[in-house]
């Protein structure tokens, strides 16, 4: 059941939103696909819900110095359709598999990152594009690499009053791919997921979901794979390193640690063979 005594405000501008969000027990509401569920389950009991959907500064997908600006309020449906984002295939794939049609119409990228789920299907692939999170708050604006944004399951660096304004994506890599395991082919959250990207210099980036408290990158694996032609030996070695590097919690209902460790190998192998097939990584 929803909290009985909450209040609702839809601020007209960013400044108003920031001052409202500084209040105790205030909570930003974007698409609400996490917020409303968490309120109903009693996990979230805000006194004040701040509906940020009217904020123009948080909208839109635009090209910016070779890269792309993605506003926090951009929905999964918009990501899937965006011509500018097609070069960032992994995040388009992640957005495309999230929930279902009705969810994708409402779910925003800011909400997916802001919710800081270990398995966010937008957050995990986003990581491999090295984006900056643009944060707006009482102290003005600040930038932060996405990798430094998460603090734990459901926890972020955001301070009271701060909002994600959007994400600055550097120019796209040559190759990227996202894949996940779900228990059914229909709607499900990821049991384990992996994104990989290879840029034009042969730098490989790998992130995984649902293997740690936050979406996580794996520098040791990236190092092994980067700057050299991908051989089956290297891939196999990297897969072992990746699998050994993860220590998933044992309590997940969606996948056991043993399975996640196995899929870490399979997914990395699949992603890199796809890259080779598509002519990258040689």
């Amino acid at each position: 059941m929803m909290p009985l005594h909450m209040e609702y405000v839809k601020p007209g501008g960013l400044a108003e939103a920031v001052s409202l969000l500084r209040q105790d027990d205030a909570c930003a509401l974007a698409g609400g696909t996490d917020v409303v569920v968490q309120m109903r389950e009693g996990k979230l009991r805000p006194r004040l819900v701040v509906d940020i959907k009217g904020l123009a500064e948080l909208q839109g997908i635009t090209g910016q110095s070779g890269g792309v600006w993605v506003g926090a309020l951009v929905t999964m449906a918009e990501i899937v359709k965006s011509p500018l984002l097609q070069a960032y295939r992994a995040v388009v794939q992640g957005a495309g598999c999230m929930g279902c049609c009705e969810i994708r119409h409402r779910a925003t990228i800011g909400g997916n990152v802001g919710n800081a789920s270990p398995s966010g299907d937008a957050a995990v692939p986003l990581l491999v594009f090295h984006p900056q999170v643009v944060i707006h708050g009482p102290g003005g604006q600040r930038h932060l690499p996405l990798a430094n944004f998460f603090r734990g399951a459901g926890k972020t660096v955001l301070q009271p009053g701060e909002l994600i304004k959007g994400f600055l994506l550097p120019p796209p890599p040559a190759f990227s791919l996202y894949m996940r395991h779900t228990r059914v082919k229909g709607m499900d959250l990821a049991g384990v997921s992996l994104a990989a990207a290879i840029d034009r210099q042969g730098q490989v980036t790998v992130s995984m979901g649902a293997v740690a408290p936050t979406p996580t990158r794996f520098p040791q694996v990236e190092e092994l794979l980067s700057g050299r032609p991908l051989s089956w030996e290297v891939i196999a070695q990297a897969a072992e390193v990746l699998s050994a590097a993860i220590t998933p919690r044992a309590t997940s209902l969606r996948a056991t640690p043993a399975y996640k460790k196995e899929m870490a190998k399979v997914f990395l192998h699949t992603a890199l063979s796809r890259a080779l097939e598509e002519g990258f990584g040689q």
Partner: protein
Amino acid sequence: MNYTITLKVNGRTVQRDVPAHLTLLEFIRSGLQLTGTKHGCGNGECGACTVIMDGKAVRACLILAVEANGCAVETIEGLVESPLAPFAGELPGAVTGTGHSHPEINGASPVGEGVGAGLHPIQRAFLAKGAVQCGFCTPGMIMAAKALYDRNPNPDRAAVVEALGGHLCRCTGYQPIIDAVLAVQTE
């Protein structure tokens, strides 16, 4: 605290005072007495509550009624072309079913001529293809299909599966529902 919201429901303007915690689904069902939209889970997981908001299929259980302020909402009751399409709020509390029967006997196409003349083609297709059993998922399925046809008049099977993804039906095994939605375009 209550908030005054003004929205269009099935083409008619409605103004109501609602508390912040009320979901759009509760508002539609209890506030407007439009009970065709169903509550199957309250968690976004089943699709029974699907309505069309500003042209897009959404899950009414995941939206606060206050968020719908200024929006246009279509529910299953708005689909039938009828001057008597239920007006939000003026319906008495529904107490019993009426038990219409469907008289045509027809082996090949069970929907007879003249029957359900005001029905939307999607509704007719659901009847013709045996896509309805208990009927609890049906309004949500039909609204999802309507939203699909509104933006894509010629969906292929993949598009239909995508539009109905995340809509649970425990009765039909889905096949007749997919067949029905695909059959709409041939009408």
